[in-house]
């Protein structure tokens, strides 16, 4: 009896935890986008010639971008249009397919860049193909800070 109650409580706790994670897609997507932003910083510095090329950092950052962008389309459910200090514009849900497709493109670009970027020159030549996806999405779907 005691054991069964324990299992029920444990399951309940697990379910609640999952529900919280599920019910707060805004916080989740913000965290992933933040990670992607942080991953981008060192590469951007290398591309601008402000930091030395570091293959390990580049590969790790590209992996972060590819993995994160894969999860993002599911984190913009219809019930997450407002709240949580979101910068997501309502337009996202009018054009959800187009919006989701931008993440697919970002994932593909970041994965491809893992193969094509081998040194500073190939970084400069190919990183735009990854970052350009960030820009096209931010231009259309992210509220301007100011």
């Amino acid at each position, binding site marked *: 009896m005691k054991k069964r109650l324990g299992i029920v409580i444990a399951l309940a706790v697990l379910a609640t935890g999952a529900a919280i994670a599920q019910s707060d897609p805004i916080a989740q997507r913000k965290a992933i986008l933040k990670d992607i*932003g942080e991953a*981008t*910083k060192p590469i*951007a510095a290398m591309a*601008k010639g402000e930091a030395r090329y570091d293959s390990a950092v580049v590969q790790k950052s590209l992996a972060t971008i590819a993995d994160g962008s894969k999860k993002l389309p599911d984190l913009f459910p219809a019930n997450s249009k407002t709240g949580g200090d979101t910068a997501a514009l309502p337009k996202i849900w009018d054009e959800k397919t187009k919006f989701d497709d931008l993440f697919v493109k970002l994932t593909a670009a970041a994965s491809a860049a893992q193969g094509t970027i081998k040194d500073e020159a190939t970084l400069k030549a190919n990183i*735009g*193909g*990854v*970052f*350009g*996806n*960030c*820009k*096209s999405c*931010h*231009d259309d779907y992210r509220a*301007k*800070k*100011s």
Partner: protein
Amino acid sequence: MNEASVIAWDGPTRVFKWALVFVVLDGWISNRYGGSVPNWHKFNGYAALVLITFRVLWGFVGGSTARFANFFAAPGKVFVYLQAKTKFLGHNPLGGWMVVALLVLVAAMATTGLFSADEDRLIIEGPLAKTISDAMVDVAARWHRYIFTTIEVFVAVHVAANVIYAVAHREPLIEAMITGRKPADQYTDMPVATPGSWGQAAICLGVAAALVFGAISAAGGRPF
């Protein structure tokens, strides 16, 4: 019908005019579709600055209709023009103000671009953004957007006005900016334009490029 035509705009003025049209359009295109090639949009901005600087120099040494002294009229003259509606070979007093407004707006657009960057400072950054504070970069980026909207409005008015002149007043203004010639007529400003020289235009362009890139370097920026 008098078939005779006179020169209205010299070659350099016309080349500048259409180059500026191209640069404004390309600025929009490179921002919208060139996210993966930030240097494209930046190069476009430098081209705009060089062109405007050229035009300012050309406004002093260029062909007679391109000179500011011959078309930048006092507001009083604009009123006289609006009532008398006489024909001008060069810019009429009202059109002269539009020219100056467009030059100032595009110059302001490109200059704010030098100091702008995307919110996260990751994707695109003007060469002088790192010389000012992050808060000021945001201000510059915001004005870069506002000024673009203003340019859209002015361009719409400018194009509409020229179409109206061509259709309603039968003044082939757009054609003249392509061919350089207008039908001979009783023009208020001058009967015929004195063209500027290509050599001087080349010097103006060289000086303009040196001024723009020199100023960016002097302010501590690398163009690319």
